[in-house]
């Protein structure tokens, strides 16, 4: 049951049980976006407050499994206070780590110091079905930010 331990690391379970940045944001600079995982019914809503191209605040509501919820929670910590460009770089680093383009090759070696706590999600690589759980909040955030930039 080694792989399973790798998937459910302590940090994951912690973020699952005590998710950070839960709640709702309102206001003219808030961009809210819903996301669904059509396979399992996971739902997430991301509220990103963007001012001067900086994600000054982020909140999350929804329901989902340990992977999608902890991923959302870890994400909220990793992006809060960052500029949109920095966020985009983080998203892309994260996606390379969990090899979203699974079929196209091996997951890339990503500098774990840069990625910080997010590294805890690396275990998901061995469970292709769960990768969608991990990426759901990230993809949803990206749509919210595109929306922010478009306005």
């Amino acid at each position: 049951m080694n792989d399973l331990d790798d998937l459910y690391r302590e940090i994951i379970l912690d973020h699952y049980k005590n998710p950070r940045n839960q709640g709702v944001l309102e206001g003219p600079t808030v961009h809210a976006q819903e996301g669904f995982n059509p396979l399992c019914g996971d739902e997430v809503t991301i509220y990103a407050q963007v001012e001067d191209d900086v994600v000054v605040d982020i909140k999350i509501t929804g329901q989902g499994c340990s992977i999608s919820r902890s991923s959302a929670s870890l994400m909220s910590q990793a992006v809060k206070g960052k500029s949109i460009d920095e966020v985009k770089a983080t998203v892309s680093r994260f996606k390379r780590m969990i090899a979203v383009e699974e079929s196209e090759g091996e997951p890339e070696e990503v500098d774990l110091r840069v990625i910080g706590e997010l590294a805890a999600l690396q275990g998901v690589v061995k469970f292709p079905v769960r990768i969608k759980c991990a990426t759901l909040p990230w993809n949803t955030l990206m749509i919210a930010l595109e929306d922010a930039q478009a306005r």
Partner: protein
Amino acid sequence: MASVEVTDQIDKLRSDFPIFADIRASRPFYYLDSAASSQHPAVVIDAMDRYYRHSHANVHRGVYGLAEEATGIYENARKHLGRFIGANDPSHEIVFTKNATEALNLVAQGLGRVLLTSESHVLLTEMEHHANLVPWMILQEQLGFTIEYLPFDAEGLLVLDDLDAMLERASILGVTLMSNVLGTLNPVAMLSERAHQHDVLVVADGAQFVPHFATDVSELGVDCLAITAHKMLAPTGIGALWARAEILDRMQPFLGGGEMISDVRLDGFTANEIPHKFEAGTPPIAEAAGWDAALGYLEKVGMATISAHDRSLTNYAMIQLQERLDDRITIFGPPDVTKRGGVISFELADVHPHDVAQVLDQHGVCVRAGHHCAKPLMRQLGVGATARASFYLYNDEQDVDALVDALLDAYRLFHD
């Protein structure tokens, strides 16, 4: 005791299914996901094999012997399926489709376009599978009628208080014979009778029911019935719509192409006779051969034996789950096992169903986790997803025991 004999018989049956021997040779394997798709006895795999090795040709169009043989195999499967569900006119009342979903789309478009206007009402239930919801929603976008829903109660039983008023407004009632999430067996014979009093046609979703219970369309009184092969020991790639001949005659063609026409001119076409009018293009021929074999296998075992086995296993599982997991488990659907089929959806405390299924997999226990293509039902239950174990003739109490053991482990993992 009948159930002991049944269990004895079942023990022997499992060896008819190659997948159990093959996978179990290398790892534990407790397959509890037959409501999603069932496994295949060797006779079914062999029937397809034999078809491809000896008898393959396109059907209906060839004069030569091989084409005639293939046509015979295909048409015999049609008749067999018709007899299996008690159709009056087996060779004309079965339309082969690719799955139950296509069958329900065919009814929605073929019958709905004839019967419905923007003033009409279609009555569905809140426990329908997406396959009996979305086709009506797509048609609704095109024609603009109203959809109403029969609700269900805390035990997962349909609430019929407003039935007559709803039927009075409706033209079509769409209802599943058995819920793929709650296991609920709906009182469809009674619903059909009431519906017909209001001149409402009944479209039944038999995807879950037909594989597990002796089915007689006249007893059920329904007008249309959707069936899928892969949940009844038969291949992927084939399903069917049964409807009374006069209903099929009234229905518009849906998919256009070869086979379904009697004439085509540059300025239009004339549809073929039923059932061919609804079968456009080359049909699933090998799949029909496999389904035919599966029907024979099910008949040999006996549908009554299968229902009895399902029920005794469901009963055993409900008791074990409740005794060993106690208040850590919530089971959805009717507590009374006589009101449900062999499907148990549950929540394990605050462990997300996805995580439950993941841990169970490590024990070799295969259960489904998710919305089970019934999102409105999920919302009604107030959950995003459930885990679901489902039984068929090759399951036994060991499978249930493995399930409960694994659930205990999953609980521990998330509560240490």
